[in-house]
């Protein structure tokens, strides 16, 4: 058990308060509050550009907020030194969308990578741990393949094995369902639940696949306008009458959420002074 679970108390694992962040003129977050409870699978949903990936980068300390605070376990992420940040990350597993496997190492070495970097375990034990994790994702037979020889779905499962090899307290998935065939999809859905239960960890799943999330998440957040616009069990969100939530959960094109990236007036853009060069 790592440092994230150690001082648990009654506090949530992740606590975000008054988060503000802008990219140029775009306010990505504007006073966002969000809690992630221990031991659950929490989904973070939102339309494209709502800031899901950005939120994830704030939780892991890859980006620092302009305002507000992000706490993960005992760590106040916004003010951590690099050493403390790395200490925190040893307890976080992260699944990148494309897997982000190291292309010069084979599958086995990819999964062994965090162990070799952070521990002095004997080779026999490393082998045992790695093969166990590969077996859990059904790819023990692929141990000696290079990442280039894997399909997208296989690569993601290897990345998942790598993400759990250090027994993290928190496991984060960025868009785990994108581009998977129905079979791999079902496998990944079940893996997320099984890992969460078997390892007793906390999981965050970032996605806009509402239907897959139904079978995965205990609790869901819906992002929009730089804030949380809906929260609750999946069923509750589906039944919500709030217009913003309805529009997203039922995929309606017309509604309060703007489909367009902020832009100057359309007519001005087409026929205004700039169009005449």
């Amino acid at each position, binding site marked *: 058990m790592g440092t994230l679970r150690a001082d648990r108390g009654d506090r949530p694992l992740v606590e975000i308060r008054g988060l503000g962040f802008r990219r140029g003129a775009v306010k990505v977050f504007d006073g966002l509050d969000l809690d992630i409870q221990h031991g659950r699978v929490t989904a973070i949903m939102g339309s494209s550009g709502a800031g899901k990936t950005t939120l994830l980068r704030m939780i*892991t300390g*890859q980006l620092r907020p302009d305002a507000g605070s992000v706490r993960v376990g005992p760590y106040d992420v916004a003010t951590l030194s690099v050493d403390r940040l*790395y*200490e925190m*990350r*040893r307890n*976080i597993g*992260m699944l*990148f969308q*494309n897997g*982000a*496997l*190291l*292309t*010069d190492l084979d599958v086995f070495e990819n999964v062994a*990578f*965090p162990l070799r*970097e*952070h521990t002095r375990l004997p080779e026999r034990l490393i082998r045992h741990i790695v093969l166990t994790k590969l077996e859990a994702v059904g790819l023990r037979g692929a141990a000696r393949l290079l990442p280039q020889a894997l399909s997208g779905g296989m690569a993601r499962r290897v990345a998942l094995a*790598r993400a759990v090899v*250090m027994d993290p307290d928190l496991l984060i998935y960025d868009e785990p369902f994108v581009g998977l065939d129905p079979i791999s999809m079902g496998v990944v859905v079940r893996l997320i639940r099984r890992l969460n239960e078997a390892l007793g960890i906390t999981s965050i799943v970032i996605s806009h696949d509402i239907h897959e999330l139904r079978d995965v998440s205990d609790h869901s957040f819906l992002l929009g306008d730089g804030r949380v616009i809906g929260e609750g069990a999946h069923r509750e969100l589906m039944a919500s009458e709030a217009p913003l939530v309805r529009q997203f959960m039922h995929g309606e094109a017309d509604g309060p959420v703007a489909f367009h990236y902020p832009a100057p007036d359309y007519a001005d853009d087409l026929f205004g002074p700039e169009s005449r060069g």
Partner: protein
Amino acid sequence: MSVLRELGESFVSFLRILGDMALFLLRLVMYTPRGLLRFRLVVHQVHNTGALSLVIIMISGLFVGMVLALQGFDLLARFNSEDALGTAAALALIKELGPVVTALLFAGRAGTALASEIGLMKATEQLSAMEMMAVDPMRRVVLPRFLGGVIAMPLLVAIFTAIGIFGAWLVGVVMMGVDAGSFWSQMQANVSGDEIFEGVFKSVVFGIAASLIAVYEGYRAWPTAEGVGRATTRTVVLTAVSVLILDYMITAALL
């Protein structure tokens, strides 16, 4: 006017890159003691970069030595001093052609490979993934490649120079009929430790410059296919120019 301003701007951006690169080098130097502890990673990279460049360096060394002997023989024959051919070829190879040509070939072969490898690792989020696994890519990816290049360069220069001298012997002694005894004995008598030091010193400096530029360009590359392409081109151009400038400065300083 606008040409002046453009020149000014590119000078400023040149200075900024130079400063950034100096800081980058400083970080690498600070990490080096601990990086050397993981010697297997470094040896692996020496092997990687060395093996990449070895064949072209051997072939180029042979032909450079051979053409040097042809030209040298032609020139020396006018003064009836063909016996000095061994000395002339050896000095030219040890002090100039060995380090400079090897560095240029290294940039084209190993340097571009390093830059594009690191750039691609960045573009495919492998470096971010490492950071998320609490592994610093500067130490794990960049440093071993940099040290590998720095160590490989003097070795490659030595190989280039030795094969170059062999090529000069082939043309001078075997083809042109220069006396083998005077070819070697004059060479031995006239090539001093100072001159060998100059060659070694240059090869070390060029090794640092070429490796630094390659890993820097890769690490700072824009994380797209186009960005990686640009990084490899810039690696070759920047290395070639800096090696030639450094070569002049070192030669002038050591005279």
